[in-house]
């Protein structure tokens, strides 16, 4: 098979893997060998779906012995199959890298023969790149559930980041939809990697030239919308993974129907993109805004509100915590203000040392006053307390109601899609749902 066709098949089979980030590793060029890594990661292109392309993301092979129902590469799916030889893939990576198309390689694979054999093939590619080609660019490798821990260890010494896909948010769903992959097969390597990363850190303190194990840590991803778990369950699971296995990232992937199967959503179900977006926002609150999962969603609220981002939703339900005095509040409280992010909060802390800040100064610093104005006091300004409906309207996320060319955006909230299916025009549906959302939110204030 010619290389072009292989690349097409094996990129197509890899495209549902979410992570394409090249962040977390900082490795300077050494003047002789090819490549370097930048801690913040670098995006080299953006595909038509708006996602960043940073790495050459391919499967080594899409021939699979498993039959996971949600997966495009399941054995029962009639799909063209292919496999790279390790040399082919290593050469392609180098030639793409030299042309600055990519930051490095993202290597995953379907399960050929058995997990160990698959891992050995993948390791062969990484050994070629790191050994023979002396490649110093970024490598993200996916470990195969059920593989020998020694192979995981070996892979970790070659890759910058390892990941184990948790696939689905609960054990029941996993049993139902991916009977070949057990919970232990997934969590065991995750635990092993977390332990190895920690141990490696201690070794590096003792002697600087100790071989590095997955310096960019590990990440995971799960499919959202193929199984019945609530957002609360998912956010708590993510929090647990960050705390327990010190994951660098938890990725969510809106389920895109790839199979006709009574256990799964129908083929014409649109991917729950808005829900995925809200989950990422909640994830940011966990990682950068010092929120706990319990604060984002408590016992009485199983799911994130589709119409406002979770931080604004929290603020609406905690009006007693506002106004915050931006000239006095500590960093953690500044972060709670809608319209203030980690960057502007840090700038506020710096800037107020040389004089009290007023609204103009906040605007110049980058605070979004459209939202923040209802939650702050500063020099010469104190927000009025009784602007319920106005506040809610300012915080609503326009993306949830977006209508373009009289058609709903694929991003619009599910209730809008329902109304449109029943015959309401898109514009009218957007108005109706928006008014209803405002009423509901005002009531809860």
């Amino acid at each position: 098979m010619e290389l072009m066709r292989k690349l097409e098949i094996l990129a197509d089979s890899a495209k549902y893997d979410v992570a394409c980030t090249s962040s977390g590793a900082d490795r300077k060029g050494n003047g002789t060998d090819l490549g370097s890594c930048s801690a913040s990661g670098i995006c080299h292109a953006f595909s038509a779906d708006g996602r960043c392309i940073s790495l050459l993301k391919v499967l080594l092979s899409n021939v699979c012995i498993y039959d996971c129902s949600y997966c495009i590469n399941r054995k029962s799916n009639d799909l063209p199959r292919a496999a790279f030889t390790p040399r082919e893939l290593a050469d392609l990576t180098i030639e793409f890298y030299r042309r600055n198309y990519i930051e490095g390689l993202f290597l995953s694979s379907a399960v050929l023969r058995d997990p160990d054999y698959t891992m050995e093939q993948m390791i062969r590619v990484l050994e070629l790149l790191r050994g023979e080609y002396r490649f110093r660019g970024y490598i993200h490798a996916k470990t195969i559930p059920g593989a020998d821990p020694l192979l995981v260890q070996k892979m970790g010494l070659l890759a910058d980041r390892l990941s184990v896909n948790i696939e689905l948010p609960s054990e029941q769903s996993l049993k139902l939809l991916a009977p070949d992959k057990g919970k232990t097969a997934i969590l065991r390597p995750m635990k092993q990697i977390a332990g190895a990363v920690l141990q490696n850190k201690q070794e590096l303190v003792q002697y600087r030239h100790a071989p590095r194990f997955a310096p960019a840590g590990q990440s995971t991803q799960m499919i959202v919308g193929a199984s019945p778990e609530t957002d609360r369950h998912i956010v708590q699971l993510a929090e647990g993974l960050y705390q327990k296995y010190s994951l660098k990232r938890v990725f969510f992937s809106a389920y895109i129907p790839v199979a006709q199967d009574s256990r799964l959503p129908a083929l014409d179900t649109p991917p729950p993109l808005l829900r995925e977006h809200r989950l990422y926002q909640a994830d940011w609150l966990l990682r950068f805004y010092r929120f706990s999962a319990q604060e984002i969603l408590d016992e009485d609220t199983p799911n994130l509100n589709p119409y406002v981002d979770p931080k604004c939703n929290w603020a609406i339900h905690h009006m007693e915590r506002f106004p915050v005095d931006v000239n006095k509040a500590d960093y953690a409280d500044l972060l709670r203000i809608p319209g203030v992010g980690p960057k502007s909060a840090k700038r506020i802390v710096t800037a107020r040392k040389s004089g009290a800040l007023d609204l103009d100064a906040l605007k110049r610093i980058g605070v979004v006053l459209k939202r923040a104005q209802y939650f702050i006091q500063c020099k010469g300004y104190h927000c009025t307390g009784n602007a319920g409906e106005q506040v809610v309207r300012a915080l609503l996320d326009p993306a949830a109601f977006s209508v373009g060319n009289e058609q709903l955006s694929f991003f619009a909230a599910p209730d809008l899609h329902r109304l449109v299916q029943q015959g309401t025009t898109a514009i009218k549906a957007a108005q109706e749902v928006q008014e209803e959302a405002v009423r509901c939110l005002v009531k809860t204030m």
Partner: protein
Amino acid sequence: MLGKNDVIYLYDGSMEGLLCCVFTAVAEKEMPVDIWVEEEASPTLFDTKAIYTDPQRAKRVAVSIPKKMGECAKELVEHVFFTSVEQKELKILRFLLLGYQHGTSVCKMLGHPDVAPMIDAEKALLNETHLLKGFLRFSDYGGTLGAVIGPKHYVLPFLAHHFCTRFGKETFMIWDKTHKAALYWKDGKAEIFDMQQFTPPNPSAGEQQYRALWKRFYNTIAISERENLNCRRTHCPKRYWAYMHEMQDLL
């Protein structure tokens, strides 16, 4: 202010020249309405004053900046000078005048009307530098790598370190079409020089093959059910597309 307030300074476009403008403004207690590069000046109703570039005066100002307001102010001024934001000279002058008043705290006055525009301008430069670390495309011309970029700001000096350390053993050239300058890297030595025109050679069959492979990969990796062209344009503005093999056909 004792001096005139309705004068436009004309300078030679160099950093030294601009520092001399600062010298004059301070010495004459004068605030010009704008500072223009002499060569690009258009007729105006305002009085103009040609500022002579005196290396010694420039040096006095250059030395005073880190001394009075710290290294961070020096770096900020240098960065903003490399941008193409409107009235960058005036922004720098205002910032420095404020700095002479307030000393080292000037870099922390992030909400001040004379500081915030400097921070924004610097951000624009560093953002574009970051984007081009990714969006720049090399072609292999018989072993030497060549790339053309068309940035808004003069990012070449900031890209140099990244590419020279990453591609240590390679020989490459990056031509900045906007600023007519080129970065050349060979045998561990980097050089930036003026270059008015550069026409890339025709790509070899091998080179064309890799471009085609890359394009195929690019088109395959998108998930059609998630197509979001607005999002793509936000992250990768159209002005970069002409220089990216995978995007050129879409223009």
